[in-house]
């Protein structure tokens, strides 16, 4: 029943897309599409949540569509229902937000028809249970999101973003296609149930793992396959950016989990090694890239790369523990990864929606043109602040809990008997710790430069607060961030069936631990109580306020800023986004980005201004992508001659190809 409702929900979304076509220019279209999507997402969310929490049995459904001899298989198991919760929670928040935010859309006809399609495709990817439906939904997801990325195609950079995205998405799908073909074998057993029973050979499993890392990893944003992500995610309208970053990357994580943990079966011992190494690099590179940005939405997109790294660290550890038969430790790492999937979808949606509110309120997303928004947009500022604290993994909010669990999983890994892990895991732990600290620095910058200080432009000085729908969506996500931070035990328990079905074990039941603490292994080993920490902080802060205001002084006098006696009224004298990042750029950037600062000082007596030029280079792009793009360009330029031949030449080509094929058939044993 639950699965049927989910499929009907996806169908309703597709119908909504068709219905929006005649009314896309009127406000009715916006209300129809976003209101409809909101209702459908909430329904689907409720059904999936009930299935997950009720620990209902697996549900399967086969529809007579798709390939005639195969049909379309769908399955609702705990893993699928967890990811449905993530998808629909994000979908509901973005739809609610867009009810108000959609008013600012200049080209609604380019957004409205594709938005519900995008949501439907993500739902279908998660419930698909055969390779054909999976890839169909996956490609559907890529194309509908591509259309949304290209919604504002008047901007040159968006066109480039769309181009890079479509190339990388096609490449990723190709990798998945080959992977499924290898898994299905020569008989074409495309149903997942058949693949599960087939037990591929070691070589095939290894090849499939690499292909999945390319296919799902490129969609999720694993370094070095992340290049499209920071271009494409910010290009879309903000509520779609939220879905791209907060939800679609999670669907890619789902694909990785489904194929590696479920379909391939027992992982090879080195699988975890590869994943961990990639994940550690992804973490640090993502956050370092983010620190160098001054475009708010691009900064957030790069942070998605970092968080995907954290999720994959959990998954890599889970693979390693599973390969060596430590089921409980594997369950801990896997649960940490899934919890971070949920947490990241919550705060990344929140932050992208906040950046949309800033964009709508000022027309700017360049942080160097913002500042002081906390005065004009206090509510948005508050929600954005909560999102920043959460994503920086600071207690008592939710980001900390999942990172804490990941650290606990790392601390269990000395028992892994392989030397490779003994050397790699501490390094990955250090990279994770480094990225957590850098993330906090990055969000001090993001919030501080955008919302604090003095307005740097007229647009920032005249900002206006977001509308009610947007604020409701952002406050709902804020509340969820806090809730997941202070009551993590319930969230961990909800993930138990998913972990059990994938790694064969689950973490100890947290709701039985007294006082709502979480205890991953044993209380003498480690425990954390978000609620108590939160209450402690609340009580001590209020006690301080009360005591000081009662017994000491509560007088306030307003005056000009002190600034050590040299206040400068011009807002340009504030620290900007790039000057804030300067110390970190100097420490890390010279190595990673080949950052160079050049100061041009005019000679004494010359009144010319001094200039500081900073140059950064994207090493991964220069080394990995530019040569490939250059080679493709050169080859296509060379093949260009073939376009201007006479018809006789073309006919002779056809004839030669025919002869060649016949010869091959004749010679083939």
């Amino acid at each position, binding site marked *: 029943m639950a699965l049927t409702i989910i499929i009907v929900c996806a169908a309703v979304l597709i119908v909504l897309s068709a219905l929006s076509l005649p009314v896309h220019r009127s406000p009715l279209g916006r209300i129809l599409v976003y209101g409809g999507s909101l209702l459908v997402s909430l329904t689907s969310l409720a059904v999936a949540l009930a299935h997950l929490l009720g620990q209902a049995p697996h549900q399967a459904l086969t529809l007579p569509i798709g390939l005639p001899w195969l049909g379309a298989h769908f399955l609702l198991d705990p893993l699928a229902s967890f990811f449905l919760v993530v998808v629909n929670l994000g979908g509901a928040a973005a739809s609610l937000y867009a009810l108000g935010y959609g008013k600012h859309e200049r080209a609604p006809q380019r957004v409205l028809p594709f938005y519900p399609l995008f949501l439907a495709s993500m739902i279908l990817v998660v419930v698909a249970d055969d390779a054909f439906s999976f890839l169909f939904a996956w490609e559907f997801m890529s194309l509908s999101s591509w259309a949304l990325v290209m919604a504002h195609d008047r901007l040159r950079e968006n066109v480039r973003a769309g181009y890079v995205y479509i190339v990388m998405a096609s490449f990723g799908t190709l990798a998945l296609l080959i992977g499924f073909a290898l898994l299905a074998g020569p008989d074409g057993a495309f149903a997942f149930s058949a693949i599960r029973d087939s037990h591929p050979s070691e070589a095939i499993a290894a090849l499939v793992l690499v292909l999945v890392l390319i296919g799902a990893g490129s969609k999720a944003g694993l370094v070095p396959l992340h290049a499209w992500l920071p271009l494409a995610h910010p290009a879309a309208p903000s509520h779609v950016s939220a879905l791209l970053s907060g939800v679609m990357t999670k669907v890619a994580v789902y694909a990785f989990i489904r194929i590696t943990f479920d379909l391939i079966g027992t992982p090879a011992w080195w699988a975890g090694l590869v994943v961990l190494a990639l994940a550690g690099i992804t973490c640090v590179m993502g956050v370092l890239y983010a620190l160098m940005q001054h475009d708010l939405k691009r900064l957030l997109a790069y942070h998605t790369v970092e968080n995907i790294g954290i999720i994959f660290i959990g998954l890599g550890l889970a693979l390693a523990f599973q390969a060596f038969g430590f089921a409980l430790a594997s369950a801990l790492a896997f649960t940490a990864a899934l919890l971070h999937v949920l947490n990241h979808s919550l705060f990344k949606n929140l932050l992208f929606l906040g950046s949309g509110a800033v964009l709508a309120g000022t027309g700017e997303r360049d942080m160097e043109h913002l500042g002081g928004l906390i005065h004009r947009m206090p509510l948005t500022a508050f929600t954005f602040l909560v999102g920043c604290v959460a994503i920086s993994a600071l207690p008592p909010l939710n980001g900390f809990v999942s990172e804490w669990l990941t650290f606990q999983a790392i601390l269990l890994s000395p028992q892994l008997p392989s030397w490779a892990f003994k050397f790699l895991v501490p390094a990955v732990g250090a990279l994770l*710790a480094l990225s957590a600290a850098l993330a906090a620095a990055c969000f001090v910058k993001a919030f501080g430069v955008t919302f604090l200080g003095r307005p740097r432009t007229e647009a920032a000085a005249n900002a206006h607060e977001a509308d009610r729908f947007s604020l409701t969506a952002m406050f709902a996500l804020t509340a969820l961030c806090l809730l997941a931070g202070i009551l993590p035990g319930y969230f961990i328990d909800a993930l138990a069936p998913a972990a059990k079905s994938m790694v064969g074990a689950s973490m100890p039941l947290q709701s039985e631990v007294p006082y709502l603490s979480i205890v991953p292994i044993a209380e003498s080993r480690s425990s954390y109580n978000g609620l108590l920490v939160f209450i402690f902080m609340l009580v001590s802060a209020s006690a*301080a306020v009360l005591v000081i205001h009662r017994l000491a002084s509560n007088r306030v006098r*307003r005056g000009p800023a*002190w600034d050590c006696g040299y206040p400068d009224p011009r807002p340009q004298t504030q620290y900007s986004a790039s000057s804030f990042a300067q110390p970190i750029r100097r420490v890390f950037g010279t190595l990673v980005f080949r950052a160079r600062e050049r100061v041009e000082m005019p000679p004494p007596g010359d009144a010319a201004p001094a200039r500081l030029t900073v140059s950064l280079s994207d090493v991964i792009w220069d080394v990995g992508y530019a040569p490939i793009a250059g080679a493709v360009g050169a080859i296509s330029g060379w093949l260009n001659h073939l376009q201007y031949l006479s018809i006789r030449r073309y006919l002779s080509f056809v004839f030669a190809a025919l002869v060649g094929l016949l010869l091959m058939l004749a010679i083939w044993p």
Partner: protein
Amino acid sequence: MALILSLAVQAAQMVLVLALAPLLLGFVRKIKARLLSRQGPPLIQPYRDLIRLLRKEVVLANNASWLFRAAPYLIFAATWVAASLVPTFASGLIFSWSADLIAIVALLGTARFFLALAGLDIGTAFGGIGSSREVMIASLAEPAMLMIVFTLALVAGSTQLSTMAGYLASSEVGLRVSIGMALVALIIVAIAENARIPVDNPATHLELTMVHEAMVLEYSGRHLALIDLSSELKLLLYVSLIGCLFVPWGIAPPDAPPGALLIGIAAYVAKLVAGGFLLAVFETSIAKMRVFRVPDFLGIALMLGLLATLLMFVARSH
């Protein structure tokens, strides 16, 4: 009855850290002054400063936001909670399981997050320079701290401070290279985190290398008092942490009789005196670093921490 008693011990710990924090700073200043052949301010001068600041009105910049006014309370709350969770005179306190060492480090991270934001709020160049340098220092000090936590957690088989202190005090530990490395790294981190010489100079704010003092330049009155008290608490926290992990003797075990608690308090005060004295000697015998030498200094801590963790990973064969 037992519950009330353990609550009372926990409350005593919270009051004790709050009461001793300014005294520790006064003691360090006094010793430093004596080492420089000066008379120095009296031991209780930090208390007097705090009371005077608390009584004064707050002069707030015209464009200060609510965050600027709320930040001192949040910083104080996070630091105080963290300081109350580090075992000082007794371990296994009733709330000690609510946060392990990783969470304590993260709580200090929360405090720093708001402090750095407050530095940016008024929009002055001084605040900005302080905040940007503070996060640069933190971006190296925090991972170094976590590596130290990893090392000690692997030694003790726990991230729970009470368990760790208990294990490190027992005779099972023996002499280990990793622990030595962790100690050196922790001292470096503690110096950097508390803005002491050679990383930062706590006695001045008009110097090109300032970090902490530049960040809080716009604060005045009760807000400044809370910020000062928080940094005093943080200093106390780090000294207590080094004490409970590396000199874990004298700490009263869980459910100890009152006599053991008194011995614990005496031992704790002795540790603070020793820690404060060593800090003062260290600070007077070393010169301040240029700000872009600090990453090298902290890099040593990070590498030591990583090496110690690696050793623990390699050493554990089971």
